[in-house]
């Protein structure tokens, strides 16, 4: 039971990470194509500035929880995905530094340099997280001893690449909606237009990916056994449709929330389909690492559950407070999130 609870929490942490940091990854990927003037670039940076660090901690927590609750999975997964994971980490390093340091350089060449780092630092993880998760759904070449028999390039199979494309599209749409919330004027319009157009590409990619998933993975098995679970993919479909409706009405914040719900349900759909497996071996299913054969001791799981139940709600509470605190766009325009947002004194 404890193992199952932790499996669910594990999936939720990833889902929340993607829903939050996803907009940073998307905006960074999109930035060179929508932000033209220096002031527009500034808005782009400021739309992520106060949030990216807090968002990234969800990734650190997802990693930490894998380590604490499923140490064997943590060991095998992270060493197997060595190159992909380190690439992601280097990307996250340079995008963080670009975010923090760009404004401290006044020369155009330096700023361009940071802009390119921002792009690669967000696009890289957007793509690679997709490739990695698609491969986790499909299974990777893990042998009996938990040693990876493939290379970085074995991850770049067609299904993995499809996952990469899907994730990238998801994040770009997610990011463009956030940017539409946080900006004004031309930039807002451009961001909204990107979201509206890419929605169709996203929907198409999602349908193709779901089809390929049926062929390449066993993700549907759990849903066929317990049909009530189909409520998760149905919620994803509803969120996707809702997103389009809100985009049409130019209700950007609502569209963003639909997108966040879409990301969460898509992640949970994948993770739920894997249950009880955390790491599937494509060599032999007997080598799979599951919530049961790779978990920590019951004592550790209990203690960590207590910590999570006390502190995660606190974290969520103050992060919501901070989002509301900054819930006005930085460079003019209307307040974005609700009437109770604190007033900003104009600088």
């Amino acid at each position, binding site marked *: 039971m404890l193992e199952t609870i932790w499996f669910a929490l594990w999936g939720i942490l990833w889902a929340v990470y993607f829903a939050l940091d996803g907009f940073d990854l998307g905006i960074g990927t999109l930035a060179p194509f929508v932000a033209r003037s220096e002031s527009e670039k500034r808005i782009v940076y400021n739309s992520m500035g106060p949030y990216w660090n807090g968002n990234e901690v969800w990734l650190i927590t997802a990693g930490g929880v894998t380590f604490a609750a499923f140490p064997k999975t943590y060991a095998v997964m992270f*060493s197997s995905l060595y190159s992909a994971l380190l690439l992601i980490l280097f990307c996250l390093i340079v995008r963080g530094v670009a975010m923090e340091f760009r404004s401290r350089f006044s020369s155009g060449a330096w700023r361009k340099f940071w802009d390119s780092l921002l792009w690669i630092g967000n696009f890289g993880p957007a793509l690679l997280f997709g490739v990695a998760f698609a491969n986790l759904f499909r299974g990777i070449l893990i042998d009996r001893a938990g040693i990876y028999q493939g290379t970085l390039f074995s991850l770049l199979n067609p299904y993995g690449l499809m996952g990469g494309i899907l994730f990238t599209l998801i994040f770009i749409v997610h990011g463009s909606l956030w940017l539409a919330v946080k900006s004004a004027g031309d930039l807002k319009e451009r961001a909204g237009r990107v979201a509206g157009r890419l929605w169709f590409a996203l929907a198409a990619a999602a349908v193709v990916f779901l089809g390929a998933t049926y062929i390449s993975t066993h993700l549907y098995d759990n849903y066929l056994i317990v049909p009530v679970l189909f409520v998760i993919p149905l919620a994803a479909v509803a969120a996707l449709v809702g997103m389009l409706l809100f985009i049409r009405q130019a209700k950007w914040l609502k569209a963003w929330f639909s997108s966040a719900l879409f990301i969460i349900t898509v992640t949970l759909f994948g993770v739920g389909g894997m249950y009880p497996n955390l790491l599937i071996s494509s060599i032999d299913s007997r080598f799979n690492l599951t919530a049961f054969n790779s978990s*920590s001791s019951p004592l550790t799981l209990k203690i960590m559950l207590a910590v999570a139940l006390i502190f995660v709600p606190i974290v969520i509470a103050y992060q919501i407070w901070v989002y509301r605190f900054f819930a006005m766009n930085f460079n003019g325009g209307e307040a974005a999130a609700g009437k109770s947002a604190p007033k900003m004194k104009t600088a």
Partner: protein
Amino acid sequence: MDTLMLSRLQFAAATFFHFLFVPLTLGLSVLLAIMETTYVRTGNEEYRNMARFWGKIFLINFAIGVVTGITLEFQFGTNWSRYSEYVGDIFGSLLAIEATVAFFLESTFIAVWAFGWKRLSPKAHAVAIWLVALSSNLSAFWILIANAWMQHPVGFVIRNGRAELDDLLAVITQPFAWYTIVHTLSAAYILTGFFLMGVSAWHLLRKQHVSFFKKSFRLAVSFALIFTIVEVVQGHMHGGEVAKIQPTKLAAMESLWETKKSAPQYLFLIPDPDNERNAVEFGAIPGALSMLAFHDFSAEVKGLKAFAPSERPPVTFTFISFRAMVVLGFYFLVVAIIGWIRRNTIEDHPALLKVFLFSIPLPYLAAEFGWMLAEVGRQPWVVYGMMKTSNAVSAIAGSQVAISFAAFVLVYTFLGIVAYYLMWSHARKGPADEAALSGEADEEVGYA
């Protein structure tokens, strides 16, 4: 080179680099909180300007600390998978608790603080930086508990072929963990004090912003003095604890080969590990090592030869790290005392100011030597007495690690240069004047 050596080098490079930025975050967050609180209580604008000026340096420094921290957590899985699998039940939990309890708070409120100069009342703004100070130090607390567990594992049982948690309280409350915490935090506060004193000295030598930097200096020198005293006293007790629980580290840091009763302390010696002796020994103080380690002039101290060569740490490394750290520690004490005595007329002592200016890098060195002693001195164990480092490494191709190691060196070197360039160019600019300040946009102090 093999996967093991490359992984060790990579982890060492990543931690050493990370720790170039962590101490200043730990100490400066506290000093910023003190400055802002003083501003709230006295209404003296100069303290607010101090928080803004030092706060900018703080943010540059903080950014590098944050981005280089994640790779450390993930490297346990990528490079040390057998370690992770064996001790994850305990060690992994401590890291997860750190992220949940402390790092979220720190990362969230640093943004509130950085972007909140105009949006928050001075009081609320001071609360934000107190939360950052509290959480960053709390973060260090959990990480150091995890490290102390590697130095001296307690509260576990070996079950199901791995170390499982048996008593979390024992892990958190073991004396060695608390020695490590006090020692490392004091080192961070000393480093911060010397950093502020050094930068202040640069401006005071040029007779610019005298009131501003004198105030900064006085705050920093008191801070540094308190914690150099704590460090020297505590360092002695810390050594005693090492003697008790890590005899091989003690023998290596003193380069003591033969087991001896009333072991002497040498003022100067050169280890000769190949021949299992010291090439030069000079200035013996009889019984001093026994006294320092066990508070008894006649106590027996185990020499390196009492342990199989495969169980000994690299002697020269350990020995030099220890000596250098201790010498620097006493240097900080002496200089801090002199600075404190002269604190009210500090601008009239150019020679002393120069000493402070050139002392900026020294606490960084001392901190890195301290970690070298702690980590290299623990070898060949990754968890002392429980698991050898050679058994902890992942079964991955060396070529992969060679590439990532090269990438670490390149990226980190670049980051280091950029960060210190930014910090230095900001530090020499000095505080912005009032007119510029009031016109300054929020973002100027914030991130982007």
